[in-house]
């Protein structure tokens, strides 16, 4: 018995060859130029916003290189009237700032900022883990009270804490500032990190538990590596805040030159009546260097998709 001849088009495929030209999408084919033009409004908006944001900083940068007399008499944009005339720029502001004991101030600022960043991170990460993944009575209350502390104005705490420090005999020491900054930073840290750690998949923590990990092991081997983006952003926050802080350092450390951070020295440079304010332009850029370095060194931790491959198929 021979197989019956297969009729043409037996597989139910559409007929080959030229089709009717009712395919609508074809009309919309774009040239590269059209594609570029279609996105142009977005590009324009982005560039405009970026320009607006950078403009004040640019002005500050240019001002910092202008002689004090020019600074006082005309705006920074006047530089562009004679763009090639480099004599209108000077390094005198930078010399003045650096000559005013900046070396010691940088050292002091680092001595204050590094522990004052590390201590709250350490405490907040542990606390955030416990508040999300360990079951104990009252943990919700503890969390709410901690976060509620965010609304307490810092200034309200200055006098009672200073009294306590005096009683303990640590007033005017670095320890006092570390503790103060740690405490001021903790509510935000606990809040940020708890939200992040709480969003880690439950399965991962349970898998670790079944694999034989104690809470401490789960924390160090699973939670901390996976929480690096949140920890890094909190680190940047906290470091910036401590580095730029004047009030807390002034109150708990006192104003002596041995312990004064960058912010305090800058304030002193300006003079009691603010007559040398133009020096702040150069001072701002000098003090900006360290936070920039911190930000860029932590940048590699700001990664998306850290959890890819763990629980989604």
């Amino acid at each position, binding site marked *: 018995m021979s197989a019956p001849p297969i009729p043409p088009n037996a597989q139910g495929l559409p007929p080959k060859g030229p089709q009717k030209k009712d395919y609508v999408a074809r009309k919309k084919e774009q040239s590269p130029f059209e594609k570029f033009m279609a996105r142009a409004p977005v590009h324009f908006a982005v560039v405009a916003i970026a320009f607006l944001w950078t403009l004040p900083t640019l002005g500050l940068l240019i001002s910092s290189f202008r002689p004090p007399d020019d600074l006082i008499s005309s705006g920074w944009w006047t530089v562009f009237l004679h763009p090639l005339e480099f004599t209108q720029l000077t390094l005198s502001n930078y010399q003045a700032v650096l000559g005013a004991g900046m070396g010691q101030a940088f050292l002091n600022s680092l001595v204050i900022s590094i522990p004052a960043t590390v201590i709250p991170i350490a405490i907040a990460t542990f606390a955030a883990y416990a508040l999300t993944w360990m079951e104990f009575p009252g943990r919700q209350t503890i969390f709410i009270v901690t976060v509620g502390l965010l609304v307490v104005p810092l200034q309200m705490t200055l006098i009672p804490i200073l009294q306590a420090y005096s009683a303990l005999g640590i007033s005017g020491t670095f320890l006092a500032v570390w503790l103060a900054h740690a405490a001021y930073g903790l509510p935000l840290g606990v809040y940020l990190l708890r939200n992040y750690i709480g969003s880690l*998949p439950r*399965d*991962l923590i*349970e*898998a*670790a*538990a*079944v*694999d*034989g*990990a*104690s809470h401490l*092991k789960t924390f160090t*081997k*699973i939670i901390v*590596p*996976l929480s690096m983006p949140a920890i890094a952003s909190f680190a940047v926050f906290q470091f910036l805040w401590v580095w730029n802080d004047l009030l807390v350092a002034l109150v708990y450390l006192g104003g002596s030159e041995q312990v004064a951070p960058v912010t305090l020295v800058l304030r002193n440079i300006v003079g009691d009546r603010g007559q040398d304010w133009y020096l702040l332009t150069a001072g701002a850029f000098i003090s900006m260097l360290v936070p920039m370095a911190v930000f860029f060194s932590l940048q590699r931790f700001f990664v998306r*998709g*850290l*959890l*890819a*491959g*763990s*629980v*989604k*198929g």
Partner: protein
Amino acid sequence: MASVVFEQVTKQYENGYTAVKDLNIELEDKEFLVLVGPSGCGKTTSLRMLAGLEDISSGSIYIGGQRVNNVTPKDRDIAMVFQSYALYPHMTVADNMGFSLDLKGVSKREIRKRVEEAGKQLGIEQLLDRKPAQLSGGQRQRVALGRAIVRSPAVFLMDEPLSNLDAKLRVQARAELSQLHKKVGTTFVYVTHDQAEAMTMGTRIAVMNQGILQQIDTPQNVYDHPANIFVAGFLGSPSMNFFEATLVKRDGTLAIETEGGLVAPIPAERLPHYREFAQRPVVFGIRPESIYHPQYVPPGIAPVGVQATASVVELMGHEVIVYFTLANGSEFLARLDPRAKISPGEQLELQFDFTRFHLFDKESEQVI
């Protein structure tokens, strides 16, 4: 290598919801128990209680004869494969698999050796230095399995480990898991909602519904002798057909009379069973494969003719599934020989196999 016993285990949540009620299961060493049921039936909760991830409200769980109610997961000597796999995304495959051994303090070299062994066994030895994100779904599933194997635990727990795989891989993985069970010779407890997995893999299956264990037996027994309407309807695809019916006395014997006009005498060997239910409402159940096209009736069955009209015909290739309606409008399904050319609207006298039907008490829904 251990037995597992659930003794009157109940799980009640704080909001009063009872997820598992009075669960009793005794599992011998090296058994492969499949917990199966619709979603929300308490099967996963039972597994999680066994794993120690969920507190037990009352009752006891024993692993290897030891009561483990208050033993933490890490001290239960169990391994669990999660539905989501839950691989540690920041670790390589080898580190994922060796994590539990590392925690136990096994030496690095021994860990590498055991990981490589397990990797070879699962065919993933070339992936050991990759991160989970670089793996496909099937490979991740194997890594999750490998993480369980390297530990050689007392009990393997699996929570729907195949549900994220595509259909073809799932069939393959099913067979591999069964093989693995034979090879490692450890007790397996496996949760699924997929009845094909339940039927093919388990040495015993436990059907659960609404937190209550409905039946536990070998797959064949559960399929052939379901304990109640739920089990009968849950296992089998397409599922069993049910008809409201009454047992009527006729000429000193009993006959079944269903809605839609099926009337047939009860086979003699089943009579003693049914006497006390005479004149009572019952439910008559018959599986789609026990219904035959009049031209393709195999030998050795007790055919009873039923007039029905075909409404929808689904040709599957190896079989044809036909939706029929009876005279009174009630619907049922039949799984017929593909050679039978049936067109919608056609009237047929279908042959019901009366050696393989089920009767349930309508009130208690239990088999009679």
